[in-house]
């Protein structure tokens, strides 16, 4: 009698396990800084990655009519050109910390699908 539950539960668990396994592959992405990304270089072409860096000075170009945005993020002395189509995040300013998610392309630019502005650590009031 008891065996049946274990078999039933086991089948359910295996099914969910397979589902997890199959979905995890495409959902996992590396989470890198700009210099880490450039170190890996070509092996990441075409992969989905998240990259963290700082917006470089005088690098933001924004066309409000075509909704095309481009900027350079920098970290560890390395620069990466990010291009994005869509509304410009209002907090995007020079020197702000950003996290971009998207694809690293073979022309060494980064096609972002999302831009997350990281709250500066000084959110908590200085004491």
């Amino acid at each position: 009698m008891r065996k049946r539950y274990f078999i039933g539960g086991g089948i359910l668990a295996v099914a969910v396990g397979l589902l997890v396994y199959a979905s995890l592959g495409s959902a996992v992405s590396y989470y890198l800084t700009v210099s880490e990304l450039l170190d890996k270089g070509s092996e990441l072409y075409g992969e989905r990655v998240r990259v963290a860096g700082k917006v470089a000075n005088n690098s933001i170009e924004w066309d409000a009519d075509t909704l095309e945005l481009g900027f350079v993020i920098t970290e560890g002395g390395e620069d990466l050109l990010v291009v994005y189509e869509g509304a410009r995040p209002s907090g995007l300013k020079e020197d702000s910390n950003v996290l971009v998610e998207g694809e690293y392309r073979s022309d060494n630019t980064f096609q972002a699908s999302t831009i997350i502005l990281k709250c500066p650590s000084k959110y908590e009031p200085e004491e």
Partner: protein
Amino acid sequence: MGTAEIGQGAIILAFLAAIVSVVVAGIGAYTSSRRLISITRISVISIAAFYSLALATAVFAFLTRDYSLRIVSAHVDSNLPASYALSALYADKAGSMLLWGWLISLFSALIAFRKHEYDNSILPHMLCILAAIQVFFLAMVTFVGNVFEQNPTPVTEGIGLNPWLQNIAMLVHPPVLYISFAAVSVVFAMIIASLITRTPDDQWVRWVRRWTLFGWCTLGIGNLIGMWWSYNELGWGGYWAWDPVENAGLMPWFLITAFIHSISVQRQRNRLRRWSLVLAIFTFEFTLLIPFITHGGIESPLHGFIHSYFPPYILAAILITLAGSLGLLYIRRKDLQRDERSFSLVSREGAFLATNIILVLLTVVVLIGTVLPRIVELFSGTRIAIDRSFYDRVAGPIMLVLVFFMGVCPLLGWAKTSWKSAKSSFLFSLLAALLVAVVVLIVGGGKWYVISAIVCCFPFFVILLEWFRGARARHQGRKENYFRASLALLDSNRPKYGGFLVHIGIILIALGIVVSSFYSVEKVSTLDIGQSMKVGDYDLTYDELLLKQDNVKISTIATISMSKQGRLIGEVYPENNYWFYYSPILNETFREVAVRTTPAEDVFVYLWWTSFDQQDKSATIIAMVNPLVVWIWAGGGFLLLGGAIAFSHQDKRESQHKDRR
């Protein structure tokens, strides 16, 4: 004496009272001395009294803007409305722990008051465990993060509250969740105490039932309020991002939902006892995981509101209580094995067990997604991220299976049933659901409309049919009209029909989630005054932009007229605000979204970007049409109603339980 001293003194007294309670209750539990038990009761009630004094002091400090306290100067300023001054309390890391602990102290005092409901042997055990939990919370707000810490130098004006938190939902969301966590800790204490004292199952099941329902309902509603806030305030057009913080609130809700069904099997059939115990223990541990995550134990891009020093202590508390409870289960394994009989899988208890297993697997899936990046980083140094497609693909289908399953359970009777008896209802409901799906297809609904129509209508029709059959029986038997008979039916078996209402709520929520996830339309445009954009069936015209300034912010308010198929249907006024204090440090302007809601869809207009310059009135506008979102909130109403009805049923002491044995 200043506010700080009074508050600090009250906290310390509460802390001492909690320690006394643990010790006296412990000895009282060991010796069963009536006198010690009375002392325990008094000291547990006094914890709540001191705690309340501390909380009242903190609230008073907020309302009077007593900037000598760090907690006040860090979260409010003179411009903040008084109601938000209250929510500033739990915007603070230590303040939120204070509120949570206070609720536990209130519930413990309630149990101490209602001593007649519990045996003399179990009461001190329960109070001892609850007091120990309070010692932890009080230690946190005294030694780790001091709520009544004073500013070293005089401060004349506070910083103010994060504009995102200045929202009615944020006033309610945290306390409702803390109420549920506190209720869950009561359930935990009752279960552990029952295990220690070998209290018979039918007793503890009776005690925990209402606390569980209460905790379940507040947790569900609290999460929904959080979703509503995310949708209306953060304004990214969605209500659920599978962010670690959201997942943290969802996991215990899955577990406590499983627990409700499992104790229902215990009540009716006296089965699944070990399973219930394990679920209750893990529900409690998962509620502790919430502050671990929200206080920064796991990085969360969306909810980085509070970072604190609490996570290591919380993790320690989780591990200690988990090890202790599982150890206790192991020690009591012989008792637990007794009379654990098996049962047929084709029965309501079999179906409930299957639901339980699915809910637990769902929790595991969400847990994997939430903690895996952290674990991988810990062991390999590689940082990875899991995007939401993981959850959508894994958890989405599992949840749809669960919704469909809600239609199967009512069809099966307790104990052994055959499919035969259920067959006609099953076929009728399934055919009706298919019919709806065909209609949806003909009207032109997409694939997911059709799928959700089948998945959601089937359990809905099963519930309606069950209800109708009961009502018809009363109608024929007692000559009541159908409406009265339906209500009388509800009254005669509140747990069952309350549960049905909850299931209808879940069906509505599921429908809203599936359809809005797949059929939301989004459009982004930068417009000058007079220009229009089109989203879905709607034309939006950007008529005017107003600039306004007050003490805390500059607002730009757009006037956008909306028409559908050439007919003007109204104006909306989305805002984009630059807050003098918060915008520079958070690097963000704060928008107030304008939502026009109809039962069929929300039109969601978002003033994304403005220049804050009188001369340049161009604006980037994001417009979305989100179908059926309001069904999610309506489902929440059913959840609350059904939960309250089920809660209002009180098991009569002893009575039926004896006959059933």
